[in-house]
Structure formats: structure tokens, C-alpha cells
């Protein structure tokens, strides 16, 4: 979806496109000089030629592209995985290359919750509340083994995050390397780019549960 930087003769291009289509349909063109003679193989190249040079897309895809390239993660470091999450902000694995370095402290301003660390039963309602306070569209990455499954500790005090909130990407590891977390975030980015209508409501069959503010 890039726009090449050579000057485009738009009119000539349009004419070529129209004539190509008409020729493909097998018709004759009247009032056109025979100088516009197109080779057979050039017809198929033309579509690609046009697509390469002009940004053609639907609005959904454009919005999804914008959203996926500017996640605002919420600062939600719980335990050891938080240290590796801090490592992706640090200089070696730099999350700012992708535009995700703006970690927002307030969940109202964030749209990605990177749950990093072990979720204890005391913390679970609070995580749920923070997730609820985030505005749509929102995504969640469960980082590390402890919140994806129970991790190293399979005991009375931990809750796997799937039990109380919808998670989009699980990143395994204990703790996952910063590169692994980056891979998870980029996977989420690809998911959001490719499926602009993907959301947890579609996956969990909860469409229609959105709340809207009345009045205003």
C-alpha cells in the first residue's frame, strides 16, 4: 500500500485502464487512435500497476491499520514478567520502533492490556475492573506462563487470566524473552490488521452487549 514517487499522468492512466477493460471484454473502441495498442500481457499487469501506485482500500482496513500501529499499552506490570516488559521499552528491543512506547497510566487512555505476571485471587477483581474501564476497541495480551495457564505455581492463590477476561494473545515463557513478547505484540498487530472486525465480542458471541452513553 505504498505510493510511488514518480509523476503520474493521471489522464493517460485512466484512458489506458478504460481501454484495457474494454479490450478485455472483447469490444472495439471508437474514436481512439490506434497508437494506444496494448499487449495482451500488459492487461494483467495494469491492475497491479495501478494498485501499486494508488492507495485503494476500504475505510475499515485503513482504520484497522491505524489502530494496529498505535497500540497504547496500559502499565500493568504485576511480577517478574513486568521486568521483561520494561525491557521491551528499553533500548535493545525497542518497542518505540513500532509505535507502542506510549504506556498510558490511566486505563481510559489505553487500548492494550499487557497482563504481565501472576494474577492472584486478590488481584483478579482489580484486573477485571481495569479492563472494564478501558474503552472499546481494546485487546489483551497475557504475558508469561502464570497468567496464560497457571505457570510454575499451580496452587490455591492464582487465577489464570482466561477465567475472568478475554485474552487475544498468550505469550508463553517464564518470563518470556523481550523478543518473545515483541513477537506476541506483533502477532496481535497482524491480527488487528487482517481482521478489522475482530473483537472479543465476536469470538465470545457477545455482540449486542455494548453499552452506550445515554443523552449527550
Amino acid at each position, binding site marked *: 500500500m505504498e505510493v510511488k514517487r514518480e509523476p503520474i499522468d493521471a489522464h493517460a492512466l485512466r484512458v489506458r485502464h478504460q481501454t484495457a477493460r474494454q479490450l478485455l471484454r472483447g469490444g472495439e473502441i471508437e474514436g481512439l487512435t490506434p497508437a494506444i495498442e496494448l499487449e495482451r500481457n500488459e492487461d494483467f499487469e495494469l491492475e497491479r500497476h495501478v494498485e501499486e501506485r494508488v492507495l485503494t482500500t476500504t475505510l475499515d482496513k485503513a482504520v484497522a491499520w491505524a489502530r494496529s500501529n498505535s497500540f497504547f499499552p496500559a502499565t500493568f506490570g504485576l511480577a517478574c514478567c513486568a521486568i521483561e516488559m520494561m525491557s521491551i521499552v528499553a533500548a535493545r528491543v525497542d518497542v518505540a520502533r513500532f509505535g507502542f512506547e506510549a504506556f498510558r497510566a490511566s486505563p481510559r487512555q489505553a487500548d492494550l492490556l499487557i497482563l504481565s505476571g501472576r494474577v492472584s*485471587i*486478590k488481584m483478579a477483581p482489580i484486573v477485571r475492573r481495569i479492563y472494564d474501564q478501558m474503552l472499546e476497541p481494546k485487546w489483551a495480551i497475557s504475558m508469561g506462563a502464570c497468567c496464560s495457564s*497457571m505457570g510454575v*505455581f*499451580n496452587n*490455591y*492463590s492464582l487465577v489464570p487470566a482466561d477465567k475472568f477476561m478475554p485474552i487475544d494473545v498468550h505469550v508463553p515463557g517464564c518470563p518470556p524473552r523481550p523478543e518473545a513478547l515483541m513477537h506476541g505484540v506483533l502477532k496481535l498487530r497482524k491480527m488487528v490488521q487482517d481482521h478489522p472486525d475482530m473483537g472479543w465480542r465476536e469470538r465470545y458471541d457477545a455482540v449486542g452487549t455494548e453499552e452506550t452513553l445515554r443523552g449527550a
Partner: protein
Amino acid sequence: MPDATGLELIRQELGDAALDTSFLHERAVLEVRAERVRDVLAALRLKGYAFLASLHGVDYYPHEPRLGVLYELLDMARVDRISVKVRVSSERPLLDSIVPDGEGPDGEGDGHVGWPAANFQEREVYDMFGVVFRDHPDLRRILMPEDYEGNPQRRDFPVGGEPIVFTYNESPVLEGSE
């Protein structure tokens, strides 16, 4: 560490408050009566063991009295450690808290200086084992949620957790969770 003879001398001084001594791997452990723990710690403080390094609970299930509380004291001047062990039964798990200062001789208390270092640690023993510390300034659960029932660190409390899904138990586990 006070060596074995030093430990016996301490035991003699404490008289009937001390129940048992053990000297293993060069660590001295003094087992005392539950109701005399404040006096014993005050006496040891006068001997120089003025720093409370740790206060933790142990569950000696199935040996009664079941719940033990250990006070690890440290003498910084001579680099000595001594452990004071107290055992209470699970039917009546009451102990005096060592946190508050005892009142003077004309007041109701025993006049001993308190050990504020024990504050959070006694709360943890209360939370994990159920030992109630009398006169603790703020005895609430510290690690588990306030309304949790049960004392997790007791030996008869199950470890809990999610069942791990293997191929042989996949159907029962997943059906059970629906």
C-alpha cells in the same frame, strides 16, 4: 551462635519457662512455654539478642501441639543467632503478641519493650496458620483477601490449582469445567 553450653546456661536462667533445647548444625533452638514468650524474649533482649530477624510459623501436623511459631533473634554485637520456638495447639491457637509495649509495673502489662518488627510477620502467621495474637494492634489478613476462609499454610489445606489437562483426562476435566 551460643554454643551448646551457652544454650544450657540460658535455659537454666529461664527456669520453668524453657521446655527444651536443641543444638543442631550449630544453631541453638530454645523451646519455651506459649504464655511466657514475652518474658523470654525480654530476657534474651537483655542478653544482647535485640534484633528480631524473623517470625514465622510452622505446622507440625500430625504431632501435637501442632502450630509452632519461631522467633529468630540476632545479636549484632557478637553475631549470634538463637531461635525461640513456641508451640500451640490448633484447638486453642492463642499467643501474646510481642508487638505492643507492655505497660509499666503499675499498669496492666508486663513492662517489656515491644518488638515493632513483628507487626507484619505476626499478621502473616495469623493469615497462613490461624494463630491469634492477643493485643496485636491490627490483626487482619495480610496476604489473602480479607474475607478468605481457611489457613493456607496448614498441612491439611490442599494445594489447590487447576487440573492439568492431559489426553487421558481431557474429557472429564473439560466437561467438569463447563
